[in-house]
């Protein structure tokens, strides 16, 4: 069993107007087997948290810590984090021209496992995973994300999740831009990866829709770079009915009960 712990994390980005703080003290503990949903309005810092965990160079951690079983994640380079077992399903996966999916998947798997996968089983695994996610076989020959639709890109992210078997998966708005069918397919993929009980999931979403298919154990509401409310799955139901309006009226006032709980 593994633990990903985020403690009082403060993150800023450089803008033309100078440094801007996006995350203002975030603390979370995620254990193997758990699914945490992070919900919040646009601009609340949800995606910043995801990118910071993965080590995107744009985000500067000014204080706080992220540890994986006690190991300092912030000290690790982007690739070291991935090899340590952290996976980020990106909101906007980039196209990498000229690099075939087949080559990319094998190279990544080799890097993560520290040895090349056995060719025969690997090819079979890739094919099976693609079928389950209803990704056409010819995608393997295409270049990474090149010419893929939004929904196809998201499926390919989940394909990687299933193949790389990380300890912790951070899903950055994987549900946005998906129609209901694609949402089901993608959710099934996440649930399969989760089923072995060897993965913890941090599910970042704007909408409650995906939570009908992926059941969270914990829900955290993010407003203005802070967790303002935490609870069980029932909190998501409440958000579905009420939306984020009551938080937006005054982040300061809403933060008070969260602080009282802590």
């Amino acid at each position, binding site marked *: 069993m593994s633990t990903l712990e985020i403690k009082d994390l403060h993150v800023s980005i450089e803008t033309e107007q100078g440094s801007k703080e996006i995350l203002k003290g975030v603390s979370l503990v995620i254990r193997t087997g758990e699914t945490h949903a992070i919900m919040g309005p646009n601009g609340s810092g949800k995606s910043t948290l995801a990118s910071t965990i*993965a*080590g*995107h*160079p744009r985000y500067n951690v000014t204080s706080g810590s992220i540890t994986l079983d006690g190991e300092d994640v912030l000290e690790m*380079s*982007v*690739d070291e*984090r*991935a*090899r340590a077992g952290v996976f*980020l399903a*990106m909101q906007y*996966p*980039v196209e*990498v*021209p*000229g*690099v075939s999916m087949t*080559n*990319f998947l094998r*190279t*990544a798997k080799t*890097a*993560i496992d520290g040895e090349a996968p056995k060719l025969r089983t690997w090819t079979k695994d890739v094919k099976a995973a693609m079928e389950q996610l209803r990704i056409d076989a010819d995608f393997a020959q295409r*270049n*990474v994300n090149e010419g893929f639709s939004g929904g196809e890109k998201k499926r390919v992210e989940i394909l*990687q999740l299933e193949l*790389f078997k990380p300890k912790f998966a951070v899903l950055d708005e994987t549900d946005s831009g998906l129609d209901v069918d694609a949402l089901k397919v993608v959710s099934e993929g996440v649930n399969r990866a989760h089923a072995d009980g060897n993965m913890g999931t941090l599910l970042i979403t704007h909408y409650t829709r995906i939570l009908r298919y992926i059941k969270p154990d914990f829900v955290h509401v993010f407003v203005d770079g802070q967790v303002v409310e935490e609870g069980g799955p029932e909190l998501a139901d409440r958000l579905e009915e009420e939306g984020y309006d009551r938080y937006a009226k005054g982040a300061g006032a809403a933060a008070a009960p969260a602080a009282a709980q802590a």
Partner: protein
Amino acid sequence: MTEITTEKARIGAPSAQPFIDGFTEEGESLSPINAGTTKAPLAGDSAKSHSHGGGVGIPDSSRAGRLTSYKLADFKPLTGLEEDWRFTPLKRLRGLHSEVLAGAAPTVVVNGPEQVIVESVGRDDQRIGTAGIPEDRVSANAWENFAGATVVTIPSEFEATAEITVDIEGTSLEAAAQHLVIVAEKFSKAVVVLNHKGSAVVSENVEIIVEDGASLTVITLQEWNDDAVHASSQQAKIGRDAKLKHVMVSLGGDLVRITPSARFTAPGGEAEMFGLYFADAGQHLEQRLFVDHAVANCKSNVLYKGALQGRNAHAVWVGDVLIRKEAEGTDTYEANRNLLLTDGARADSVPNLEIETGLIEGAGHASATGRMDDEHLFYLMARGIPEDVARRLVVRGFLNEIIQQIKVPSIEERLTDAVERELALTDN
């Protein structure tokens, strides 16, 4: 790619007015003597005072006004200020522009299907001079000095299933002249590979004749030794409904300057021109191409991609596309992309598009030079791939787009390996 500079379609001939002191519309004038003078960005002096080309009503700046002549004497000695030589370090030409080219030409060995006719001919062979007239002094110098030519003919209606390889191997550094003629007769189909290797100082003229309905692929590979100096004018004449695919790959050599041109002589022609270059420290790799849409309803597509690494690695790409008044229904696009892998490398990229008729299907050009895209690296590294491996993947992918065009597996494999070797140098 992170695009540092992007130039989007500029329509019409470049203006003769300098914009900023020391700059032409195409960018920096390299010579201080040029600063402040009103020098035409194209053709320059050569357009004003010569016996051929140019003519009444053709502006100095138009590619149509470029001097062409078989005679060396018609071209003035080079100073480095000429538009078409301004990026080239003349000192490193080792006399190709100034000496009598008396050295022994690199040996030529042709292999291919037996139906293909290979001849060694003298200067007086009537096929010589049918595809092009020299357009610069170095090309004219080779014309003046070449002893004999190799003519490769693909007979009419013959469809070659295996490629025709022309091995051109240099063994001496004495300045030499070379001449090749490739004729794809009517309705023939073939792939011709020019393998340039060894050590040489050579100016080469390659005439390419693509007769009506023929489909010809010419792949010119420059895998010279480090000391080689090579100038090659490769002029193609494209007949009715004929198709030329020209693929240029420059990897080795001290100075390599390839000037391919495609001229349409009848409607329905198609030209695809691809290029790949990888310039290392101190290397000068230059490519200037010209697509002459002189007749209606022809198509052209140009894509050149380069990677540069190391101090004073220098690549030059100039793409001139001319759509003449008669060339209605033209469809053309040209693009150049450069990836700068280290500090100290320089890429000059100049797309020129002249359009003399509005009745065309499409015309566009683009150029981008930049560093590697951090988002590409982040994506790959976020999947556990170490940075050095990720960088190689990105560069390989970038250049692969050209290699994939070759469609001769053995050559594709060889070039992929060659790119790997170039990339391995970066790590040192």
